[in-house]
């Protein structure tokens, strides 16, 4: 509550891009060192990156959905439900008219879910979490019913849609190839970077491009346009926004509907996933919730949520591709990270934080030392565990929109 300025307001802070670049560089170096020292080359292989991209895409869309809604001040825990609606809509439109129709179908059905959430939370002021939970329930019910009704006659299976044609994949050819050759030379750091980059440049689908493009687009729209400014003002101080002529209710509706549309797009990404026939009951598997977690992890910012989904997709990709041994290798990386943080904090004279980091590093190393592999039961949930740990460490530095989840009624400000 203290109104006292915390530092000199005349000086803006360190540019974001500097921090982003250093964090990414540090991450790559840590992974490279880990891969070299533990022999778990899968940690930085092109295949792992591709798997990570595949797995992070639906989460990224859901996270972006969360961003749009929560920046407008509406908590959206109904992302899961909207995503389920999106998978169904994508399959229904997709098997009839092809992949682009599937994308549209997912968006439309997700947006409908978002509209419902907006009606409940903005117009009727229902508690946002309550409404979100109800919409998830409804989304599951509606899709099951509709699948029984519309898919079963064609696919002979009420839980699955007929086959939906997917996008063809493509690679950024000459670059991807030369990266592959560098990767295969197994040179420390160079090969790791080549592997990580190579995965990003091959096996692409239009949805991957859309997903990655939406991160800067969301940033530009939300932070660099008048529309975005108005939308964010509804999440920060709707009363002030209203006093300046912003149609808060409209903006909240727009934000939540876009949120639903993005979650639906995430559903479409699942339906059109290479390796998928189409809609499959239960295929979201909680990815909507994870998208929300990724967004919180990313401090309600597009770049941050990309990092959150990437972390999630990466750890999941590593554990699925290379199993418990690779997750075990990640423990080694975590040790390096903890020690590095401890050093940084010592340099900044933050003794307590440094001590905690050092102890954490020691504990993680202890675990690493005492076991050979992480049991599959835990490796499978490593992403969730990592998310929980990161939140435990960093959650107090997070900065949600100030008016998030609060009731807002027109003309009630003073």
């Amino acid at each position: 509550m203290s109104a006292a300025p915390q530092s000199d307001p005349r000086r803006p802070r360190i540019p974001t891009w500097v921090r982003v670049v250093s964090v990414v560089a540090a991450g790559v170096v840590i992974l490279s060192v880990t891969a070299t020292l533990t022999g778990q080359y899968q940690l930085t292989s092109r295949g792992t990156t591709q798997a990570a991209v595949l797995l992070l895409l639906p989460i990224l869309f859901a996270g972006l959905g969360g961003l749009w809604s929560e920046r407008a001040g509406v908590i959206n825990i109904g992302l899961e439900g909207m995503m389920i609606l999106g998978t169904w809509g994508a399959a229904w439109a997709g098997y009839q008219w092809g992949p682009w129709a599937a994308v549209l179908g997912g968006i439309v059905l997700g947006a409908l879910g978002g509209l419902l959430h907006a009606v409940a939370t903005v117009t009727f002021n229902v508690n946002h979490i309550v409404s979100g939970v109800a919409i998830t329930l409804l989304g599951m019910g509606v899709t099951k019913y509709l699948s029984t009704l519309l898919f079963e006659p064609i696919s002979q299976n009420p839980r699955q849609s007929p086959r939906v044609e997917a996008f063809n994949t493509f690679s950024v050819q000459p670059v991807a190839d030369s990266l592959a050759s560098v990767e295969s030379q197994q040179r420390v750091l160079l090969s790791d970077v080549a592997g990580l980059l190579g995965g990003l440049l091959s096996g692409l689908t239009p949805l991957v491009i859309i997903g990655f493009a939406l991160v800067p687009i969301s940033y530009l729209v939300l932070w660099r346009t008048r529309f975005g400014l108005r939308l964010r003002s509804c999440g920060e101080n709707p009363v002030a926004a209203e006093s300046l002529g912003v149609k808060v209710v409209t903006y909240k509706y727009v934000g939540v509907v876009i949120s639903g549309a993005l979650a639906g797009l995430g559903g479409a990404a699942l339906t059109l996933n290479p390796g998928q026939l189409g809609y499959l009951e239960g295929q979201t598997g909680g990815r909507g919730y994870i998208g929300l977690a990724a967004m919180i992890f990313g401090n309600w910012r597009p770049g941050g949520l990309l990092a959150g989904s990437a972390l999630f997709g990466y750890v999941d990709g590593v554990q699925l591709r290379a199993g418990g041994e690779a997750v075990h290798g990640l423990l080694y990386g975590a040790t390096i990270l903890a020690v590095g943080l401890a050093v940084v904090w010592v340099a900044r004279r933050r003794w307590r934080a440094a001590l905690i980091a050092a102890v954490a590093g020691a504990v993680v190393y202890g675990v690493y030392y005492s076991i050979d592999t992480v049991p599959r039961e835990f490796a499978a949930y490593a992403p969730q565990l990592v998310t929980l740990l990161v939140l435990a460490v960093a959650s107090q530095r997070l900065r949600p929109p100030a008016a998030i989840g609060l009731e807002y009624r027109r003309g009630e400000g003073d």
Partner: protein
Amino acid sequence: MRIRRGFVLAAAVLTSALVVVGCARDTGTTQPAGGGGTNAGACARNSAPPAPAGGAASAAPAQPNADASGLKVGVAFDIGGRGDASFNDAAGAGLDRAISQLGLAKANTKELTAGPNESEDAAATRLRQLVSDGYNPIIAVGFKYATALKTVATESPNTKFAIVDDSSVDLPNVTPLVFAEEQGSFLVGVAAALKTQTCKIGFVGGVEQPLIQKFQAGYVQGAKAVAPNIQVDVDYLTPAGDFTGFSDPAKGQVVATGQLDSGADVIYHAAGASGQGVFQAVKAAGKSAIGVDSDQYNIPGLADVKDVIITSMLKRVDVAVFDYLNAAAAGNLSTLPKTFDLKVDGVGYATSGGKVDDIAAQLDAYKAAIISGAIKVGTAPTS
């Protein structure tokens, strides 16, 4: 001040990192990526076992068709029901065959399907509905019915029941229809070992539970029987209790791609609907896959990936259901085998597509050895 210190630190770290850049790694261990063959040439293969005395394997004598027109048959499917392209469908096929061959009236059959995550009493209610509507016999598809069936069968001693995939209900009016999945898996393991160019094959299980581990055990044993030094990558999508592993093709694709990247070129899946992802991954890499439960080469939904399916491990739930109905119609259930195994064609492998025709002789030799008892197939993974 603080920033500068940060920069200095970062610079120090970067410089030291750059020093090691360019140092080649000591690549003594497995090479990732690129599908580079590890020890392709060194995949020593044993010869097929000699044909056992008594000649080729002979199927158990088939029972003559009985007249089932008097039966009223109820079927309680597991989650998914008809259309799952798996054991529910197979059970349905068995019922359909009974309708066409045994004179069973379609009107005298009833099918109900379980919902996901339902409680035991819902399963029991489903069985009771069939009992109270006068269906007899009643077939429960899936081991999840075991507990409910125990209750309902005790209540209704005059109704005959059969349960697929479970042998734990010990009641006089309950007939277990269980399969030697490990035997069928052994044979496709043999096929995989014979087909691999890289001496490395993969297994993708949906959920790490005993039933799926039987598939894994037989597959690995079969592969090792052919090529003792073969590498088998075994991965599961989710641990026991998390059934999303059977319905997450995205994960199936990632896992299969991982195995392919590390050099495996034949992948056998026992992952339900997630298998779609496995097939897609295999197709993208131009390698081979092995299907499960039914002849997946012929499943319409998988038409565009069927060219990579070299064979499928068949679990003939249809045979079991048909045989059971036949025996029930004849009034003599004692003719049914304790386990539907290779001997009674309860399990087997598919030949559609002709991709295993060239190794049919070896496969038949192993099949005969298993039937004769010369090879015993374990049901639990050894490691």
